[in-house]
């Protein structure tokens, strides 16, 4: 175990938490156990303990089972797993937030596009209407097609029925059927059930 630098030069001072961060917890536990077993701890300057056992005074062998337990679930492992879990959760949260932001942005863009397209549709319908007004039709018939108002009417009865009048624009008199959205797939339902993806 590392000692606090300079600790031996002055009066006894408490250890600074975190100064030994490079040393694993499991090692410290081992050292303490070893220290207790020998009853000798290397003194530091002014009698302060360094907490480090001398190489020649190795700890006795641990009771059977201790070493096995230490290898199975070491504290390092637990900490690593905990950190990994926290990191994964953090990354997931970041991904989730990022996804929400992305979808929100897309949604906003689509809404704007829809509003713009709706407006454009209304403009185009108005243009269609203005292009088919009676004055315009007459003008086109006379100037472009060279037609003139009839002088003599000649009525001939035929068997073929006259074509239906097609309203312009059609949407005004026909209500479009609402399209039913397709059923979501299982993975869409799963993604949708996750918090933040609804």
């Amino acid at each position, binding site marked *: 175990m590392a000692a606090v630098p300079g600790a031996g030069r002055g009066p006894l001072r408490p250890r600074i938490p975190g100064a030994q961060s490079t040393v694993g917890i499991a090692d410290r536990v081992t050292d303490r156990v070893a220290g207790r077993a020998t009853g000798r701890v290397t003194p530091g300057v002014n009698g302060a303990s360094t907490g480090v056992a001398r190489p020649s005074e190795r700890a006795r062998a641990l009771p059977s089972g201790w070493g096995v337990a230490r290898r199975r679930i070491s504290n390092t492992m637990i900490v690593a797993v905990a950190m990994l879990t926290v990191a994964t959760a953090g990354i997931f949260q970041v991904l989730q937030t990022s996804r929400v932001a992305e979808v929100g942005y897309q949604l906003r863009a689509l809404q704007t596009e829809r509003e713009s397209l*709706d407006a454009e549709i209304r403009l185009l319908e108005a243009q269609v209407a203005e292009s088919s*007004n009676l004055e315009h039709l007459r003008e086109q018939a006379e100037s472009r097609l060279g037609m003139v108002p009839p002088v*003599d009417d000649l009525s001939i009865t035929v068997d073929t029925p006259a074509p239906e009048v097609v309203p312009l624009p059609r949407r*005004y008199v026909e209500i479009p059927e609402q399209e039913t959205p397709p059923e979501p797939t299982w993975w869409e339902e799963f993604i949708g059930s996750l918090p933040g993806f609804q």
Partner: protein
Amino acid sequence: MTRKRTDQLTWRHWTLTILVLASIAAVMVRLYQVQILNHEDYLEQAAVTRQGAATLPGPRGAILDATGYPLATSVDTWDVYIDRFLWRDREKALASASAFADFMGMNPGELFDMGTDADAGDVLVQRQMDYATGLELQERDLWGIRLIPSAKRIYPEGSLAGPLIGYIGRDGEGLWGVESDFNTTLQGHDGWTTMERDALGRPIAFSHQQTKEPVSGGEVQLTIDRFIQAIVEQTLSEALAQYNARSGSIIVMNPHTGEILAMASSPAVDLTQVDLNNEDLDKLVKTHAVTDLYEPGSVLKTLTTAVAIDLGLVGPESSYEDTGAVEVGGYTIRNWDLMAHGIVSVREYLQQSLNTGAVWLAEMIGADKFYDYLGKFGLGESTHVGLSGEAEGTYRTPADPDWYPVDLATNSYGQGLAVTPLQMLTAVNSIANGGILMRPYIVSKVVTPEDVRTYEPVEVRRVISEEAARTTYDLMHDVVEGQEWGHGAQVPGYEVAGKTGTTLVSIPTGYDIDSTIASFAGFIPYDDPAISVLVKIDQPSGGLNLGGQVAAPVFADLAPQIMAYLRIPPSKPMVAQP
């Protein structure tokens, strides 16, 4: 060898401590100023900058003709404002004004002055900017330039059916006509969305957002057919010019259903050039065929005759002796031609439109029954056509203290009572459709986001028997087609039923003998009438002023055009003009 440190605080410590404390104090004072003293101001500024509510326009619905063609519809536009709050940053405002002026073709100095004026509120720079231009401006992202969605009403057929369609004010409310009467249906409801904005006022995509969806206005489909309406308006306009008449109205209906296929009045407002400050605007925007009363004259003889036949008092060949005049209550009533015609049948009386014949029939009918029938024909009551300003008409009855026996006589040939042209045609329609009074209607369908309402023909009541109706209808046919010298309402290739009317214009002191109202009510084709038409020409002054001289020829001009449009072939051979 190290120098021994003392535990005493040195001047450096004190200086550092004082500086730190002073800094903290300064920060706290500023915080107090910002958070407590000027809390409200900063809160408002932050809200203005950060929170924004955008309007989601709910467009006003269209007014359609019978074929689905939009007679009035709305297109999206923008109202462009300068945000004075943001233009407090003069440097950015100057740059923005320059770019904005360049875009708008305006003077940058004027724009800058306008936008940096000390007055509160945004400055409207342009109303109803073209949608595409607005998008282009929006893409330039100019500092402090806001575009608010708005809409412009357009009329693809121009002035067609102007008084009927109506107009909307700047507040989007209908001012008259269908725009006003169906304002609630047509009006869309704007939605809104609140969102956080960045410093430039642009919406932040993933900020907290609340939205209320806009609701589009409903569509109102009229029974008016724009092709027939155009024919009618054109014919009316030409007739007024030809006969030098002051005004006029023409209505075209389906006599079987009560559908109004066209309804025109002249003079009328031009929807493309509405001057809201025009003092005569209230006259131009009226649908005169619904709002104005007139004395129908001899057209009403058809009703008198129908009543007498329905009561079984006379038949087509029943006769009376016409002496040219008849005394009623001390008044002498004469024929329009001031002549005596001797023994005259009901058929002949109607053909020659003799007042004495109508008086003869009315006296046989009796006052109570006569007025009872007038009520059944819908005179004196609203037709419930659904247009505002409809007049109900008026006539006196024996129950009124100022009724005199002569009223029955004059009423029998259409004088001394007032009706609207629509009332008159609706009443006459019942003769052509087998005796049933059909309610006139002008709206056939209303489509809203919630539902579709379709208006069906409504039978108000049976007025006369089917036989009486058929007999009277045949007599009306003889009026037009059964005269040796012809009739002004005859249409080559078709058979017509109808009746003319001429009445003097009533003035406060009585009648103006120099002014007439010429009218004609007719049906075509006679076998199975597809349309009924009422032509009313007010005060023709070109030498011709009788119904047969003025209104009947207008019908004759109008009817074949409508027949061609409706693809109803002639029923008799047409002879080519040499």
